């Protein structure tokens, strides 16, 4: 069903304004003075096109770091009114300019949140969001998407994939109904064009390891000392998980203010020491090596087995932000060679 089109460089702004005119909330990469981050943008000029990847992933938009699941109010007569999560209150949202790895990351989240029971807030947000991805023409030493079975021009997870081609124009692949609907009002801006080979316009990302081999290896490495060796300098913060597009761990807490209160969900990380701490004081993952092993196993063994997707998209963000230079490529290469 894919339709192929061409979006002229000069037409992009009109497309943006039209989306704005339709009242959509638009997230796009913006330079905040220090880093490029996905932010709600209101002017086209704010959007950054020339960048490798954002510091944080677009995960926050469909799986916010903090959101209320429900609220309650206790009346004087002890009756309780419950205010449930309202999907209708969510705005129509468009993400413009995320990288193919983030698009794949959102598929990983979808796999987790929709495996058996659908997670209402996630699904609602996902359904209301259209993903306009831009292929990569640059990468850095931490990128390894090709090692995880896709690449800088992959269409997985996107509604529209834009690939920058000659003259700064974009070759657009309209991949889904959502994508089609998005350009409906602007058909004129998208010229029809034949299907083309994107390869010359994409960056070449060298494969760093063989992920099928890793999956096999992990079957017998659970008690291997490499986990201790690898994680000795890990300090156990949550930075890697919080920037990861595919990490979905969260905590559910209540805030009780007496007569009113709410339940909320917020990000959590398997790297933090209290993550699996039991009330009894026992912690099944007592030391950092066990937590690090969990992170690798979850992404490269458990998820492929259960959800049939990798829990890692190869964006390399975890390696970039790690304060102590834990590097996932280095560690996976080590595993590969064992």
């Amino acid at each position, binding site marked *: 069903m894919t339709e192929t089109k061409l979006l002229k460089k000069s037409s992009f702004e009109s497309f943006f304004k039209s989306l704005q005119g339709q009242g959509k909330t638009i997230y796009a990469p913006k330079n905040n003075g220090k880093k490029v981050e996905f932010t709600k943008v209101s002017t086209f000029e704010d959007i950054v096109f020339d960048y490798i990847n954002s510091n944080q992933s677009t995960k926050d938009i469909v799986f916010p770091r903090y959101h209320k699941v429900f609220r309650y109010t206790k009346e004087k007569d*002890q009756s309780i009114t419950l205010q449930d999560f309202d999907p209708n209150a969510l705005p129509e949202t468009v993400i413009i300019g995320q990288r193919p790895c983030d698009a794949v990351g959102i598929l990983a989240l979808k796999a987790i949140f929709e495996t058996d029971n659908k997670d209402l807030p996630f699904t609602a947000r996902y359904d209301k969001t259209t993903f306009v991805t831009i292929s990569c023409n640059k990468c850095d030493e931490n990128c390894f998407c090709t090692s995880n079975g896709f690449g800088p021009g992959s269409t997985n997870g996107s509604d529209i994939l834009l690939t920058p081609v000659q003259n700064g124009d974009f070759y657009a692949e309209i991949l889904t109904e959502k994508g089609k609907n998005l350009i409906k009002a602007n058909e004129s801006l998208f010229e029809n064009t034949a299907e083309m080979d994107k390869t010359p316009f994409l960056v070449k990302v060298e494969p760093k390891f063989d992920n099928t081999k890793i999956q096999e290896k992990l079957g017998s490495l659970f008690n291997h000392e490499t986990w201790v060796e690898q994680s000795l300098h890990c300090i156990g913060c949550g930075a890697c998980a919080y920037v990861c597009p595919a990490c979905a761990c969260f905590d559910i807490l209540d805030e*009780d*203010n*007496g*007569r*009113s209160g709410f339940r909320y969900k917020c990000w959590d990380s398997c790297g933090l020491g209290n993550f699996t701490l039991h009330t*009894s*004081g*026992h912690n099944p993952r*007592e030391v950092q090596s066990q937590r690090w092993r969990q992170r690798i196993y979850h992404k490269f063994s458990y998820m492929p087995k259960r959800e049939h997707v990798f829990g890692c998209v190869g964006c390399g963000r975890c390696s970039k932000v790690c304060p102590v230079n834990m590097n996932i490529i280095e560690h996976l290469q080590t595993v590969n060679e064992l």
Partner: protein
Amino acid sequence: MARIGVFVCHCGENISATVDCKSVAESTAEIPGVVHSVEYKYMCSAPGQLLIQEAIAEHKLDGVVVSACSPRMHEPTFRNACSRANLNPYMVEMANIREHCSWVHEKGEATTQKAADIVRTMVEKVKKNKPLEPIRVPITKTALVIGGGVAGIQAALDIANGGHQVVMVEREPSIGGHMSQLSETFPTLDCSQCILTPRMVEVYQHPNIRLITYAEVIGLDGFVGNFVAKIKKKARSVDEDVCTGCGACWNKCPQKKIPNEFERGLGKRTAIYIPFPQAVPNKPVIDKNNCTYYKTGKCKICEKVCLPGAIRFDQPDEIIEIPVGSVTICTGFDVKKTDFFPEYGYGKYKDVLDGIQFERLASASGPTLGEIRRPSDGQIPKKIVFIKCAGSRDPAKGIEYCSKICCMYTAKHAMLYKHKVHDGTPIVFYMDIRAGGKNYEEFVRRAQVEDEVQYIRGRVSKVIEKNGKLLVYGADTLLGGKPVLIEADMVVLATAGVSNEGAEELAQTLHVSYDQHKFFAEAHPKLKPVETNTAGIYLAGACQTTKDIPDSVSAASGTAAKVLGMFAQKEITREPIIAVVNRISPPAFSTCVGCFMCQPVCPYNAIEKEEIKTRDGKVLKELARVNPGLCQGCGTCVALCRSKSIDLQGFTDQQVYSEVFAMLNDI
């Protein structure tokens, strides 16, 4: 779910006149967890208490809130009542709707609402209460008395006569304190030494008293009933057991010109000396700073003349550790010296004296054998100006308080002078005359009327020495501030009474509090005047504030009663309102990381190190432990602990949070 009973008291009309108690009880009944809520006219009465006891049984209550007066007033009453009904007494809380509400507000809806709010917070608190058990600790029945002045002597004798062991530690070579320096005492003018010396001897000879002189307390560990005092016994250079006190040594000592501290510089003493003839014990010490042998390695005359052979030049200082159950601090006071007063010559004029110096001049055993003579030229002064409030009641000098004893002793000084020098003229400058006390006002009146002491109400701005006279510039404020100039032969300053040297260090050693003037602080100015904030440590005499002899002695007897009362028990029972360091399962054992930053903030020295060891004795972890005997539950460590590893039983973070939230969330 909790089963809480709420009992709203009318306190006669104290509460019910402004608070609608019925409405409070009714609204409280609606709080989740409250299964019984009633009002009654007098909850603290026998039927009131019975009402609670019956309700506990009938409604199977596991928590009780008595909504009445301050916990200071009746918490013990209601805790006992609940205890009788087999409810742990610490499951009871008082909601203070009297002092905190009815007494301070007008009658009205808002007042009733506030009362209901107060009750609600306590209901939320009691939901988080846990049953606690009182702490019981054994008692070492030996009392430590620090200081051998008249207060220490009285306290020691009272306790010893009560049948318990006493250890008395005195810093100076002899006991007696300031009272032994006095000539006569007000208001009876009886001889100070005549009434004190027999008691000093009694202390020395009492079978229950161990007297350690020339010694200081340098450490105190442990807690009420179980202290260990570390005492440094300074080397006397004389074997006390061998010395007979014959006096041969000090009569023969060639160093004779050392200013005598006991005479406050007005007399001289030898290097081996007893401070005064009636000293107890009557055993000399060698003043190493002034002894020829210690300075040059030669002399040893005292050793030669000592028949029993008691001189020990190589005697070392000795550290003794004694277990004691109580400590009574009676370290006394001092008075400011004349060099504190620039306007009166910075101590440069020889004939400007302080009060104690004048006592020594007037004393029959003093440097002039009781004759009033000028230190400068030995002449008998014909006119003496006494200046009261020299330093006292003077914020500019940093001493805001009234020294209390000066009005009386100045009247006494003026009288003694007049009695000894009949043609002399005593003139007293005063601010006010504060003669509150039995026969005190009469005494001052006698000085003014019978002994014709001239009292001038006014301050002295300056004393100038000129041609052997002291020019006293003052003002007579009863005559409209008329300037007065008096040519006096001697000026006596009633200098302010101040805390004794070393008081601050001692307070820190003993971990008791002291005020800005470094006087020891009592636990409560009215209701606990002889206790400190540290259980088992008591205060008597002028170490607390300047006091006269009757006050010092009565406080001393007061502390003795406290000590004897404690020693009469088998063990001490204490409120379990103490801080506790949490314990969790291994491998952490506690969230405490053992940084011990709580240690310096604890005013009671209650934080100890606890080692967690493996079976083979390897130390796994060091953590803080609160000694339940020492902790007074002040909560400072709780507030300081970064990892929130310490909590205060009875006032846990959870309880306080619940109270605050209950209050905030329903407004």
